[in-house]
């Protein structure tokens, strides 16, 4: 009896399978997104990871921001396709000479997705909401960017939380908001453009406030509103309509009440495709219309198959870090200089980076304000490296070099290959390299952050165009990753971070770059332009060096 049953089931399944193949499996993609007039009205973009939250204030990762950026706007933004600050919800902005009082003249006739009106009171409601966060929200896992830009909270619950720099927000009239801080900061005004400080509808904020993020035992549970579309409401060209977590898909719908140029496509869908190959194949199969984090090796293949693969301007830096604390040899300036001279950056750029990559001379790309032409340079010179090692009495230097596996970053497309080239260069100069491959997260990140790798490779893509966002991140104070305490370096950056005059600050960054490169805490290697891919029938958005593409600009040909 049982056997007959399974036979019957088998017959059904076989019949299904036959039917499936017989019908040519007319997949949805043929009619996907078909509007009544036959035009496609859904644009599908593949990203490498799920967003963490629909409230960008709780996030610090690019995948969350890529989605929320289409729905939420901050006071400031960046020009389309560039890195200069541009008006967003504020039409104009200025600070007083002390750099502590920031005045924003707001755009009128802006409406939130939930019908609420945007005004100065709404701006202050947001800033006060973040400032008054309590409990779990004060963890840097939740409020990383608030703490980076504005310091701590009205009432810090942890003694290690940074002191609050935010003082107040006043709505002097309906369309003027004044934000005051306690100390001038190099993070302003750039910080006002961050997605994490985007403005939400006050009505939505009231709902948010009812749902606490709770720390329960061994993790932080994000509040429910941030996980389900419905409550979150911004002012952007799209509103978040649905988050289907099972299918790894966030759907946004065009917001017809948008104040600016309306989005050209009705539905915007972000789908998660974990692997590089998976994203490329999905584009080739026609299942998605574009994707990010294109492997440099795939650029040519895609282009020759008719896909569009625009590259962004460089806004990142790849470097070799040198941890001095646990390695006596690296404490000698000659050894650090020898390593810098030993590495052939030009060859690395030529062989490993996509077209448009450049060799670096300092810890920021030349697109960032504060880049200096006068830094000390360490051109590729094996003999000079050997001589410097001899001078330092380190001719037989043996050194451990950590590199990450199974990862590609916009600044580091092929870590293992890049490592191999650098290893060969170092060995030519007489340095014996012990390779130490590690898994990216958390092993490699933990080891580098703890300074336990003598040499390691890392990098960084900027948030906004300010020198501090690059060099300040690493060298403003003692950091185990580098393990040095050089008063000159720290002082140079301290001076730059509190200078309120933008022109003077740029000059101070140039000086700081020169000080850093004279000291040489690590070797800046290259800046690479990350590529993004689109199908041939797409008019892509202007690509952004900050990876802040505005998908409202996308249309189908």
């Amino acid at each position, binding site marked *: 009896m049982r056997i007959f049953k399974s036979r019957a089931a088998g017959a059904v*399944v076989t019949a299904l399978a036959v039917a499936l193949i017989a019908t040519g499996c007319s997949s949805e993609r043929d009619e996907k997104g078909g509007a009544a007039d036959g035009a496609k009205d859904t644009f599908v973009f593949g990203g490498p990871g799920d967003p*963490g939250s629909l409230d960008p204030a709780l996030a610090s990762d690019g995948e969350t921001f890529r989605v929320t950026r289409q729905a939420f706007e901050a006071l400031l933004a960046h020009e389309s396709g560039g890195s200069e600050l541009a008006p967003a919800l504020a039409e104009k902005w200025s600070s007083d000479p002390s750099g502590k009082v920031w005045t924003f003249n707001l755009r009128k006739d802006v409406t939130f997705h939930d019908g609420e009106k945007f005004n100065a009171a709404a701006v202050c409601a947001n800033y006060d909401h973040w400032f008054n966060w309590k409990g779990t929200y004060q963890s840097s896992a939740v409020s990383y960017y608030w703490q980076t830009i504005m310091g701590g909270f009205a009432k810090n619950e942890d003694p*290690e*939380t940074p002191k609050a720099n935010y003082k107040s927000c006043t709505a002097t009239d309906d369309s003027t908001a004044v934000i005051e801080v306690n100390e001038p900061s190099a993070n302003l005004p750039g910080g006002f453009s961050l997605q994490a400080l985007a403005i939400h509808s006050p009505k939505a904020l009231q709902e948010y406030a009812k749902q606490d993020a709770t720390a329960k035992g061994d993790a932080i549970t994000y509040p429910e509103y941030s996980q389900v579309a419905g409550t979150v409401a911004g002012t952007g060209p799209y509103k978040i309509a649905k988050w289907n977590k099972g*299918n790894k*898909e966030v759907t946004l719908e065009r917001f017809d009440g948008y104040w600016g140029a309306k989005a050209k496509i009705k539905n915007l869908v972000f789908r998660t495709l974990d692997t590089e190959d*998976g994203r490329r194949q999905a584009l080739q199969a026609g299942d998605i219309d574009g994707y990010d984090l294109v492997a440099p090796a795939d650029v040519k293949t895609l282009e020759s198959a008719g896909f569009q693969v625009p590259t962004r301007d460089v806004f990142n830096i790849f470097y070799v870090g040198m941890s001095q604390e646990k390695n006596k040899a690296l404490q000698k300036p000659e050894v650090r200089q020898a390593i810098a001279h030993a590495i052939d950056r030009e060859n690395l750029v030529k062989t490993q980076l996509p077209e448009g990559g450049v060799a670096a001379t300092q810890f920021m790309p030349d697109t960032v304000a504060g880049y200096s032409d006068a830094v000390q340079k360490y051109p590729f010179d094996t003999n000079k490296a050997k001589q410097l090692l001899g001078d330092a009495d380190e001719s037989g230097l043996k050194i451990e070099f950590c590199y990450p596996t199974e990862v590609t970053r916009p600044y580091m497309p092929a870590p293992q290959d890049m490592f191999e080239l650098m290893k060969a260069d170092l060995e030519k100069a007489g340095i014996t390299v012990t390779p130490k491959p590690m898994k990216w*997260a958390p092993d490699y*990140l933990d080891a580098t952050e703890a300074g336990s790798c003598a040499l390691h490779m890392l990098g960084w893509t900027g948030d906004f165009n300010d020198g501090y966002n690059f060099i300040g991140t690493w060298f403003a104070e003692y950091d185990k990753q580098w393990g040095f305490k050089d008063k000159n370096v720290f002082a140079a950056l301290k001076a730059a971070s509190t200078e309120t005059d933008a022109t003077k600050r740029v000059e101070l960054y140039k000086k700081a770059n020169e000080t850093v490169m004279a000291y040489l805490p690590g070797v800046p290697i290259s800046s690479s332009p990350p590529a993004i891919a689109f199908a041939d029938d797409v008019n892509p958005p202007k690509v952004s060096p900050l990876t802040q593409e505005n998908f409202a600009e996308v249309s189908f040909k």
Partner: protein
Amino acid sequence: MLRLVARRLLQLIPTLLGLSVLLFLWLNRLPGGPASAILGERATEAEVARINRALGLDEPVWVQYGRFLKRIFQLDLGTSTQTGQPVWDEFTLRFPATVELSVAAILIAVVVGVPLGYFAARRRGSWLDVTAVSGSLLGICIPVFFLALLLKGLFAVNLGIFPSFGRLSTGIDATRVTGFAVLDGLLTGEFDASWDAITHLVLPAVALASIPLAVIVRMTRASVLEVLGEDYVRTAESKGLDKRVVRVRHVLRNALLPVITAVGLLTGSLLSGAVLTESVFSFGGIGSFIRTSIDARDYPVLVGFILFIALVYVLINLLVDVAYSLIDPRVRVH
């Protein structure tokens, strides 16, 4: 029978407890913690310390284990450090996808494998037999991951017959009743969604079925060959019994006993095989979630999921034993 079930269920408790201790110790021996996975490249030491404190990871292992155990008794698996959502929610969201995939794979393996093995044995030495034997050898040799890539490249990317990734097409969303997309579509009358889910299942299920299919073909063939040579088959045939009755009642019924055990164990192992297949097809089940959890050192998810998979394994074994005793009354006697 009831006794057997009760005893086996009781045996579960020490098994799972032991496993949880081992898991906890093992995870704690791994370098790194979730903090830097959360914070990324710019993590400073102070921030890592603060997150570890917030997550309770700065406490001794036994305190963490005690807390975990207490929560388990309250049926709370904790919260995923990656997504900030309860592990149980993550689990119920993703588990149906993996079950659906595994069931589809095992169905393919059984439906194709048993008849193939049976007829290969009946026509020993024929071209069918040779094809089945060498094909199954190939099935065992080719890594599932590679086969998945191959199938995807050919049928999704080049020929465009099947979708290249996901569980459902963009914008298709069956009303969730059971979480099983195919079933939900049928239950709610959204047949398009069911069909869509089936088209998404075909390639990953075929890839995942390759090893169980090969094992089942070989086992069925060997088992049928053995039974065919038994005296009682010859006796039944010589008595002049209907050939079909002999084949089904005598040969197949007896030959399938070891195959059923194998199917049970294979089903359990499919859950782990799904990790790679789901990754290739971005399938959104627990397989790919476990992979990202390992990367992110998401301890609560790893412990919870692995314990659950262990539970499923044990329960499947139990089911196999029950099925076995139903088919073969001799088992009940012992």
